């Protein structure tokens, strides 16, 4: 275990575990947290997991944990690790099973008061039109070549089918398509699992949420993003479904042997990794990019189904219900990026496991109309609590490889949450607070109870004060659709 005695405070809200803490560490580990969030992080194995990631071959600068850090498998959730290319490693276990799990935010110009009378109908339509549950099936049945088209083209594939607007792609990380995808490296099993799952939500902490824009902190930036206080918005949180899970399984299992052949010793077998420039590293990267593209396409099709649900219910009854995309971000991914390290432009593989890219103003990878303000960052809260829109900052570029937090972060185990919370009662409590919940599983709902999570507002406050993300707006839930 790691205790507070092992930590050095290097700045307000920034804690460091020196590389001398353990013989196998290659770089120090850094943790962004206030005192309470730090104590929460030290209460389970998440900080040990952070230290473990500081041992990966090629890791540079620091292994980093965001204030929403919590215990995962392999990497902690809320972790950022960059390795120097070309020889630094890529770790499929570091990216995790839900490749390109992420968040999409759509906003309308419809005021909450106009939508509220129809919220039950909207929630029912969303629940009926957007299938949920781990093994659920979506509205499309794809041939092999169509599925490979999705894996290579991502959300762009949806444009040709009428399920996307061109503006949606401009407002998606990597414009909805990760380069380097090659479906030849995606197994037949992964193809099979993905074939009928496009446009499905999945289970666990995934959701669709109808929100009200409760508060705007930076009106200039908010207006540029189409965000106005008092209007209705919709968030989607999901990923690459069974296809992504199978890609991760395939490579984590196969690399159990490969990692030995490269002579790499690791403190945890889930961290298996190979040099990025090795044939095996390239094969995983080609497959991971396919799964990432599948996830972009999945959130795109869900956005289409959500727009159709709104149209079914409120067309002709209210004006301005059209949903415009603010942005779509990934928070489980390995990305090839260039960052300034010790004064040198350096090519790195940035693993973000429960962490969001937060590129600041001036970044050349942002669309023209966002380049002067920076990248929108979407931070969903736990069910029944607030969510935040942030914007990327120069501080994130300098300190955290252009990364920030991704959500609230759990503090209570799922087993304990199920013992302490009754799903049906929780649904009733949320209803009495004006939040409708549609869920396929009451025990699954109990596991996602707000009491099982940290306070997202504190998490966001820390990244805002440290300067690795800037608060733009706060959203509050009206209706939640869960797997």
């Amino acid at each position: 275990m790691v205790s507070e005695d092992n930590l050095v405070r290097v700045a307000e809200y920034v804690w460091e575990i020196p590389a001398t803490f353990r013989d196998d560490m290659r770089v120090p580990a850094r943790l962004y947290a206030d005192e309470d969030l730090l104590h929460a992080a030290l209460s389970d194995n998440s900080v040990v997991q952070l230290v473990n990631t500081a041992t990966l071959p090629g890791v540079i600068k620091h292994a980093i944990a965001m204030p929403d850090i919590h215990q995962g498998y392999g990497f902690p959730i809320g972790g950022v690790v960059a390795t120097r290319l070309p020889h630094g490693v890529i770790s499929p276990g570091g990216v995790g099973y839900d490749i390109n799990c992420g968040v999409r935010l759509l906003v309308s110009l419809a005021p909450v008061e106009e939508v509220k009378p129809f919220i039950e109908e909207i929630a029912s339509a969303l629940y009926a039109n957007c299938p949920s549950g781990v093994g659920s099936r979506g509205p499309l049945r794809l041939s092999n070549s169509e599925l490979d088209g999705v894996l290579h083209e991502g959300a762009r594939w949806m444009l040709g089918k009428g399920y996307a607007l061109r503006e949606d792609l401009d407002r998606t990380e990597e414009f909805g398509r990760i380069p380097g995808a090659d479906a030849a490296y995606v197994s037949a099993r992964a193809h099979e699992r993905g074939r009928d799952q496009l446009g499905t939500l999945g289970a666990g902490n995934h959701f669709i949420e109808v929100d009200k824009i409760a508060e705007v902190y930076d009106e200039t930036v908010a207006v540029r993003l189409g965000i106005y206080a008092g209007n209705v918005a919709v968030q989607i949180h999901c990923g690459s479904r069974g296809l992504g899970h199978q890609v991760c399984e395939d490579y984590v299992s196969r690399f159990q042997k490969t990692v030995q052949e490269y002579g790499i010793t690791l403190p945890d077998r889930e961290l298996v990794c190979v040099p990025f420039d090795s044939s095996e590293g390239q094969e995983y990267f080609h497959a991971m990019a396919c799964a990432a593209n599948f996830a972009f396409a999945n959130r795109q099709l869900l956005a289409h189904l959500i727009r159709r649900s709104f149209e079914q219910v409120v067309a002709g009854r209210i004006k301005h219900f059209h949903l415009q995309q603010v942005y779509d971000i990934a928070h489980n991914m390995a990305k090839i990026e260039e960052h300034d390290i010790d004064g040198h432009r350096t090519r790195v593989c940035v693993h973000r496991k429960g962490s969001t890219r937060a590129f600041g103003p001036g970044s050349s990878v942002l669309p023209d109309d966002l380049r002067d303000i920076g990248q929108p960052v979407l931070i969903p809260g736990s069910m029944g609590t607030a969510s935040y829109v942030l914007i990327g900052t120069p501080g994130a570029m300098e300190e955290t490889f252009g990364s920030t937090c991704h959500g609230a972060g759990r503090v209570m185990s799922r087993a304990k949450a199920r013992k302490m919370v009754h799903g049906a009662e929780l649904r009733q409590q949320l209803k009495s607070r004006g939040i409708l919940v549609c869920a396929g599983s009451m025990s699954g709902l109990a596991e996602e109870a707000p009491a099982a999570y940290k306070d997202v507002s504190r998490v966001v406050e820390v990244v805002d004060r440290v300067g690795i993300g800037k608060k733009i707006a706060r959203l509050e839930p009206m209706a939640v659709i869960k797997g």
Partner: protein
Amino acid sequence: MSSFEEIEHTADRAFRARGRNLAELLENAAQAMSALDGLKPGAEPPITREVEVSGVDRETLLVNWLNEILYLEQTQGEAYDRFRILEANNHHLRAQLHGGKSTNTVSQIKAATFHNLEVKQMPEGLEATVVVDV
């Protein structure tokens, strides 16, 4: 000695399974995952599937076995509640899965992981703690 128990885990789910030998450990681990997932097979008609799984060592074999079950459940819309290992060594197993069409689609488990996984020799037999991603 109980065959398995759930272990607390902050974000995902975990269980510890035991067995007098490798075959029993593999059966009990599958039983534990099935109990955690909560998928229920329908009464009729019963479905039996036979599978073969390989791995470079016992830990890989265990993870690949659990993921084989999840793959079949999620692609076939089935749930299994009884598991019989017909033969097993450290690198290979042959097994029967018994169950039926799933009565609910809300499976929670995405995959079994290698996190801190070790098949340990204990005085009473073998033991392994498995974290599953949900």
